[in-house]
C-alpha cells in the first residue's frame, strides 16, 4: 500500500473507532424495588453486562451512579464503586457503596445500542474498505495495459479492442490491428470511443479504421502478418478437448464464455494443449480463427518486473531507449509464449504452423492463422500454450477464398468532453504528431466509411506506446537481484513467483476490472 493509501485508511479506521461509541443510542429503563427483587441471577448477570452503570435513585432525591455493580442473592443489597450525588447534583462521596434496597426509590439502567444511522455508516465503511482492500492488497492486478476502445450499442459501451499492449516504452512504439467485430455499410458513420482507464500516459500516433470489403455472407479475418483474408464458410469444431475434458461449448461463439485454466502451482511456464477436430472440411486453403485474450499472468509479471526495478525504473527504461534492453529479448515473456497452432504432417507428427502473440488481457481479439490446404475432410488442430496464460473464447476453421485489400479511413471528427476537438483531430491525422492522454481522458472519434454500395468488416489500426505509472507500493519491492534473475534465469523466476501468483490468482481478474480509472 502507498503511504497516502495507508494514511487515508488509518484516518478512516481512527475516525470509525473514535466516533463509533458516539453513534449509539440509549435504551433507558427504570425498575421499581419490587421489579428488582424479582430479578433472577441470569437477569442480573445479563443486565450487568449490557448496562455497566446502575443509577440508584433514593427517596430524598440523591442518586448513586454505580459502576461494576452487583447484588446479593436475595436482592436486599446492591453494591458497586461509584459516586453519590445530592438532589442538587453536587458530588457528596466517591467510593465503594453498599446500599440497602429498602431505601431505594427506583433503579435506572442504560443500555447502549448501535443506532440505525450508525449501522448505515458502518455498512458504508465496510463496503468502501472492502473495495479499497481488494484493490490495494493486489496492486499488480490493477487495471492497465494500453488505450481501450469502445463501440456504443445503444446506451451501452462495449469494449472491442485494446491498442498496442506490448508497447511499454517509446522505442517499442508499434502498430496494432484489432478486429472490431462490427460490420458497416458504405456511406455510414462509425464512432469509436478511446479511453485511458489506467494509471498510464498514452502516446497515440494515430487511430484509423481499416474497412475490409466483404461479399454477402462472407467474413474477413486478419492474419498474423497484417494481411486480410475473406472467408465464405466458417466451420465450428466438432470436438474440443483440454486437460479438463470437453470444452467445445466454450469455443462455439464470441460470447465471453471463455476456456481458460489456472496456472501450474510450481512453475508458471508449464504448458498445456487443447485439441480440436473439424469434420467435412472442403478442399482448399483454410485457416484457424481464434478469438482470445490473455489472462493477467503477463500483466502480473510485467508489473513484478517494474516492482523489481523500483526507484531505478527510469534507468532501466533509459536502457530500453538506448537499445540495450529490448522487450523482444525479455526471456520471461519468451518462455510464456503465445498460442501455438499445430497441425499434423503426413507422418502424423505435430508441427507448429503459427503463433498468436497479441498481448493484452482486456479485449478478445480475433486472429487468423493460415493453415494452407490440408489433406482429407477430417482435420485435427492442436493449440499449445502456457497454462493459465490465455483465455480462448472462440475457435473455428475458415475456408479462405482470397486476400482482401482494405481501405484506410482516418477520423473526420474528434470529440472531447462533449465538444469538437479540432486540435486532437489534427494530431491524429498527422502521423508526425502524437496525442498524449492521461488517466480519465475519453475521446470519441468519428469516421465516415467510403460511399459505395458494399459492406465492410471493420478493423482498428492504432499506433503508439504507453508509459506505466510506477506505483509507490511497487517501489517498496525494488530488488535488482530478482530483476536480473528474470532476465538471466527466467525459469527460476517463473518457479519462484508461482506460489505468490497462485495466492492472488483467483481474485485477480475481479480486482483488475474493479480498479479501472474513471475521472470523478
Amino acid at each position, binding site marked *: 500500500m502507498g503511504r497516502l493509501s495507508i494514511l487515508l485508511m488509518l484516518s478512516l479506521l481512527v475516525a470509525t473507532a473514535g466516533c463509533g461509541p*458516539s*453513534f449509539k443510542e440509549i435504551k433507558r429503563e427504570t425498575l421499581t424495588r419490587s421489579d428488582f427483587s424479582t430479578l433472577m441471577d441470569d437477569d442480573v448477570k445479563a443486565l450487568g453486562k449490557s448496562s455497566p452503570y446502575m443509577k440508584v435513585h433514593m427517596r430524598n*432525591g440523591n442518586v448513586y451512579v454505580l459502576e461494576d455493580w452487583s447484588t446479593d442473592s436475595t436482592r436486599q443489597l446492591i453494591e458497586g464503586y461509584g459516586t453519590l450525588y445530592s*438532589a442538587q447534583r453536587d458530588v457528596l462521596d466517591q467510593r465503594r457503596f453498599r446500599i440497602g434496597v429498602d431505601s431505594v426509590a*427506583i433503579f435506572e439502567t442504560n443500555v447502549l445500542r448501535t443506532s440505525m444511522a450508525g449501522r*448505515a455508516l458502518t455498512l458504508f465503511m465496510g463496503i*468502501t474498505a472492502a473495495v479499497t482492500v481488494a484493490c490495494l492488497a493486489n496492486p499488480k492486478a490493477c487495471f492497465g495495459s494500453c488505450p481501450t476502445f469502445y463501440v456504443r450499442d445503444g446506451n451501452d459501451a462495449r469494449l472491442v479492442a485494446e491498442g498496442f499492449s506490448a508497447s511499454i516504452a517509446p522505442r517499442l512504439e508499434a502498430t496494432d490491428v484489432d478486429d472490431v467485430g462490427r460490420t458497416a455499410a458504405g456511406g455510414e458513420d462509425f464512432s469509436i470511443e478511446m479511453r485511458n482507464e489506467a494509471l498510464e500516459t498514452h502516446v497515440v500516433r494515430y487511430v484509423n479504421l481499416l474497412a475490409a470489403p466483404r461479399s454477402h455472407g462472407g467474413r474477413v479475418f486478419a492474419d498474423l502478418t497484417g494481411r486480410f483474408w475473406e472467408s465464405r464458410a466458417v466451420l465450428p469444431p466438432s470436438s474440443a478437448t483440454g486437460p479438463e475434458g470437453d470444452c467445445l461449448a466454450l469455443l462455439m461463439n464470441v460470447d465471453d464464455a471463455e476456456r481458460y485454466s489456472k496456472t501450474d502451482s510450481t512453475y508458471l511456464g508449464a504448458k498445456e494443449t487443447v485439441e480440436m477436430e473439424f469434420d467435412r472440411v472442403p478442399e482448399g486453403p483454410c485457416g484457424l480463427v481464434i478469438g482470445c485474450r490473455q489472462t493477467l499472468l503477463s500483466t502480473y509479471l510485467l508489473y513484478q518486473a517494474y516492482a523489481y526495478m523500483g526507484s531505478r525504473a527510469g534507468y532501466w527504461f533509459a536502457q530500453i531507449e538506448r537499445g540495450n534492453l529490448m522487450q523482444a529479448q525479455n526471456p520471461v515473456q519468451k518462455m510464456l509464449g503465445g498460442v501455438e497452432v499445430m497441425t499434423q504432417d503426413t507422418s502424423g507428427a505435430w508441427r507448429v504452423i503459427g503463433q498468436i502473440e497479441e498481448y493484452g488481457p482486456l479485449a478478445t481479439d480475433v486472429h487468423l492463422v493460415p493453415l494452407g490446404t490440408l489433406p482429407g475432410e477430417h482435420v485435427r488442430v492442436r493449440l499449445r500454450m502456457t497454462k493459465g496464460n490465455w483465455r480462448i473464447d472462440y475457435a473455428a476453421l475458415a475456408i479462405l477464398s482470397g486476400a482482401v485489400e482494405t481501405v484506410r479511413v482516418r477520423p473526420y471528427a474528434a470529440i472531447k468532453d462533449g465538444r469538437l476537438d479540432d486540435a486532437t483531430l489534427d494530431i491524429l491525422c498527422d502521423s508526425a504528431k502524437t496525442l498524449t492522454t492521461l488517466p480519465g481522458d475519453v475521446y470519441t472519434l468519428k469516421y465516415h466509411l467510403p460511399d459505395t454500395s458494399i459492406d465492410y468488416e471493420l478493423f482498428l489500426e492504432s499506433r503508439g506506446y504507453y508509459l506505466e505509472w510506477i506505483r509507490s507500493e511497487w517501489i517498496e519491492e525494488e530488488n535488482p537481484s530478482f530483476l536480473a534473475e528474470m532476465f538471466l534465469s527466467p525459469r527460476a523466476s517463473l518457479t519462484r513467483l508461482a506460489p505468490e501468483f497462485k495466492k492472488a490468482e483467483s481474485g485477480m481478474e475481479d480486482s483488475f476490472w474493479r480498479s479501472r480509472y*474513471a475521472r*470523478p
Partner: protein
Amino acid sequence: MRGRSGIGTRALALACIVCCGCAITHAPWGWMGYPAEERAAAHGAWVALRLDSPSAAQLRGELIAVSEDSLFMADRTFHAVARSTIRSARLLTYNPGTLLMAGGVMLGTGSTILNGWALIFTAPMWMIGGAIATGMRTFEPILDYPACGWSRLAPFARFPQGLPMMLDRSSIHMKSYNLGSPGLEGSATESP
C-alpha cells in the same frame, strides 16, 4: 468551469439535504453528553416546552420530574408546569454527534478515491446515504410529546421516581455547562 460548477451544485444539494432533514432541538451546544457519557450522568435530559399560555410561550431547560398532573423543569430557576397547559414538548436524550457524523461522511466520501473506478458507486453512496443517515441521526435522541406519552419521557428526568417530597425547590437549577465563554455558563438561552 463545468466541473467546478458541477461540484458546487452537488455540494449545495448535499448541504440542503442535510440541513432540511435535521431535527432542531435548541439545546445549548455541548449541554448533553454523547450516549456513552449519558449512561453515567446524574442530570435530566434537555426539554423544550411549548405552552398554551401566551405569556410564557416557551420554556427550555433540564427535565426535573414528571408527576400525575405536573411537569417540573429548571433553567436558572425551578418551574412547575401543569401538564394540561403543555401543547408540545421535545426531549433531547443525548448528543447525537451530528458534526462528528458529518465529518465521518466527508472522510468516507474522500476515502472512495482509493476505490478506483468503483468510486462512481461508493462516492454517491457516501454522499447521498451519508446525508440521509446524518439527518436521521439528529432525530434518534429525540422524544416528542404528544407523539410519545409522558410515561416515556419520565425516565429521562433528573428524578425519574418523581419529585422528592421534602425537596427544597429553590435549590434546584439546571445543570451548568461551560463553553469556554463565561457569559453563557448556566444560561438557559439556546444556541442559534
